[in-house]
């Protein structure tokens, strides 16, 4: 109840122009833009366990209308992503205000809403020849180099190059993506050149990935992407003492003391 009343107040007072939340439509919890003109819709505002990258939507909307003020429902992962988008100049600080949502379960609070609460269990064959998506980088200490490489290759070679991991990632925003550069990744090749395709992405996720896990949820063949990027960011944390999304300080990956020129934020398609 508190959530809906707060959102209504924000819209009525003009604290935000639009509010990004979820609403049941056609039997599915879908992202929805709540506005002051249709305030009664806020009665249907829900925070569903289906997770969409609302901050990515917010960045796209702000790119199309730069002076807009956006409110949104945010779990911890959304807030981390908002910080990273600010750090990399994709969102002006202050454009987005958040209403917190219960994410992980605890006895100290009433509810929990996260698709990770229902993460699929890894099957027997995958555990035997591949990698358990639910494992941690530390679990790899028991395998030797050859076995690690074989297991990862068994995972990567299933890739169908759908670009789902990149498309859904809330902190992927480059207009010219390396994964589409014709000199690096040949078009029309299936499977893509492995492991280079995934390692290129992993390197680009260093210092950016907020460990939200949407990439793994979007992968049609269950490649343990979140695990891979966790390892990369563990290295970043060890070397630079930097954890993406924890604050809006300048990232150690922006060199020369000031932000390097970044591509403009995504604009809605023209023409």
């Amino acid at each position, binding site marked *: 109840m508190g959530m809906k009343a707060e959102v209504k107040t924000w819209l009525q007072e003009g604290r935000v122009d*639009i509010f990004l939340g979820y609403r049941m439509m056609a039997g*599915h919890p879908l992202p929805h*833009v709540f506005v002051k003109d249709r305030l009664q819709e806020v009665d249907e505002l829900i925070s569903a366990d289906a997770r969409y990258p609302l901050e990515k*939507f917010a960045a796209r909307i702000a790119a199309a209308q730069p002076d*807009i003020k956006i409110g949104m429902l945010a779990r911890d992962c959304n807030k981390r992503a908002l910080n990273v988008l600010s750090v990399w100049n994709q969102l002006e600080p202050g454009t987005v205000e958040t209403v917190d949502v219960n994410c992980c379960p605890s006895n100290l609070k009433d509810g929990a809403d996260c*698709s990770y609460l229902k993460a699929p269990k890894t099957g027997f064959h995958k555990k035997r020849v591949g990698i358990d998506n639910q494992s941690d980088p530390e679990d790899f200490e028991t395998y030797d180099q050859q076995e690690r490489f074989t297991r990862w290759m068994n995972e990567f070679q299933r890739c169908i190059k*759908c670009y789902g991991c990149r*498309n859904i990632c809330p902190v992927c925003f480059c207009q010219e993506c390396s994964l589409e550069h014709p000199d690096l990744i040949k078009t029309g090749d299936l499977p893509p050149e492995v492991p280079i395709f995934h390692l290129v992405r992993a390197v680009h996720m260093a210092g950016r990935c907020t460990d939200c896990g949407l990439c793994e949820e979007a992968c*049609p063949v269950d490649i343990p992407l979140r695990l891979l990027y966790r390892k990369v960011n563990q290295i970043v944390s060890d070397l630079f003492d930097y954890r993406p999304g924890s604050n809006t300080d300048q990232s150690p990956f922006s060199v020369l003391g000031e932000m390097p020129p970044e591509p403009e934020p995504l604009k809605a398609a023209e023409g």
Partner: protein
Amino acid sequence: MEVKYVPSVCSYCGTGCGVLFEVIDGKLTATLPLKTHPVNEGRLCIKGWNLHEYVNSFMRLKAPLIKTGGRFRRVSWDQAIQVTADRFTDIIAKHGPDSVGVLVSAKMTNEENYIAQKFARAVIGTNNVDHCARL
């Protein structure tokens, strides 16, 4: 600026994955998977991820065209249908009904597929009906 998120079904193959369109001011600008759809459960293939591209493509046909003298000429629907019917009649009269083949597709609706095969069998008089998936 009007922003909506509209659920739909992918128009490519016969699987029918659930998709979510970002619609800004009445125009499709992005495609996402429907995370709670039972068919795809939040995943899409590369074709599904790019539905918004072809919807807005400048290469989409907007009017009937007839090739005349090696170039396409814009015509009315009546003219286009008449020319097609006349050509089919000529070909069937000259080479027989089995000289015509009909290819259906998962991109069409089931109802359209039904009409196409009915047209092939009852109107043209051939059973040369096949599907793009078999190519």
